[in-house]
């Protein structure tokens, strides 16, 4: 299984590259962005965050680079799980659970069904070819530094001591007071989506044409 081994090696290499990239970033850029007085030895929670962030980015890289659409789906699973865990670090408990329910329980299953209904399983190894990695790499190199420099060097007006508190009750109050109209509009949007998806995906039977025999 030389192909599998080389793919595994490539994946490991990419993961190492991403980890090294994040390491360089945290060593070179962060000390400039953060005053020297706030430095401290790493806590366990920080290490867990780094592991989850690496899993998230590795999953996203798998979506972007894998040639097998099923592996892309597994990468998407890793990325979505990681984002849900990152929500926990940001004290967004309700959002983390919503991410699990909606994305992993809904969207990902829908995507897997679409993969299995559309790709011929025999060609699944070449089912996810790309237009060429050069353009993608150029795009990545063009976009990422801008975003990273903005993220690292802009002096955001950071709250000094962000609190970790339960948010579910507050989100419910906000939904039913300040954001009531968008909340109701979203329910109409979901209804329209439901009907629209059924209308688009059903097989059209014209009355003047004879029915196809299976």
């Amino acid at each position: 299984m030389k192909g599998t081994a080389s793919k595994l090696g490539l994946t490991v290499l990419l993961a190492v590259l991403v980890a090294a990239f994040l390491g360089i970033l945290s060593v070179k850029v962060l000390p400039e962005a953060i005053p020297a007085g706030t430095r401290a030895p790493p806590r366990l929670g920080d290490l867990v965050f780094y592991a989850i962030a690496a899993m998230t980015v590795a999953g996203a890289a798998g979506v972007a680079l894998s040639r097998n659409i099923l592996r892309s789906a597994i990468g998407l699973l890793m990325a979505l799980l990681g984002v849900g865990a990152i929500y926990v670090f940001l004290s967004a408990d309700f959002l983390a659970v919503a991410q699990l329910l909606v994305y992993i329980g809904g969207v990902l299953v829908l995507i897997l069904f679409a993969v299995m209904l559309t790709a011929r399983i025999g060609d699944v190894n070449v089912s996810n070819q790309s237009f060429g990695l050069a353009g993608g790499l150029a795009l990545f190199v063009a976009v990422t530094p801008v975003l990273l420099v903005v993220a690292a060097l802009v002096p955001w007006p950071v709250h000094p001591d962000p609190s970790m508190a339960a948010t579910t009750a507050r989100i419910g109050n906000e939904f039913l007071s300040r954001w009531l109209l968008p909340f109701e509009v979203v329910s109409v949007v979901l209804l329209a989506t439901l009907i629209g998806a059924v209308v688009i995906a059903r097989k059209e039977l014209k009355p003047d044409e004879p029915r196809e025999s299976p």
Partner: protein
Amino acid sequence: MTHLTLTHFLVVGALLFALGLVTVSTRRNAVGVLMGVELILNGANVNLVAFDHYVVGGVSGHVFALFVIVLAAAEAAVGLAIVMTIFQSFRTIDVRIADTMRE
């Protein structure tokens, strides 16, 4: 090493966004393109919640992120329905094949 700051979360969001952009623009499989859209929306959501936690301090960012999640689910449902229709018409979901409207 430093403790977790806003920048850590912004970096994760930026990488998710960039990789999603690469996925959208390089995949030939239409389902792969939809996966890239999901990555982009998740990157944006991470930024929203991080700014809410570290800068604003309320739950407005959470509410906005919940709206994004709902609309992403709706977009995935309609998008995959369109992909199924394209598969019925063209027998493939390669995004280069469905170019009937390109004149």
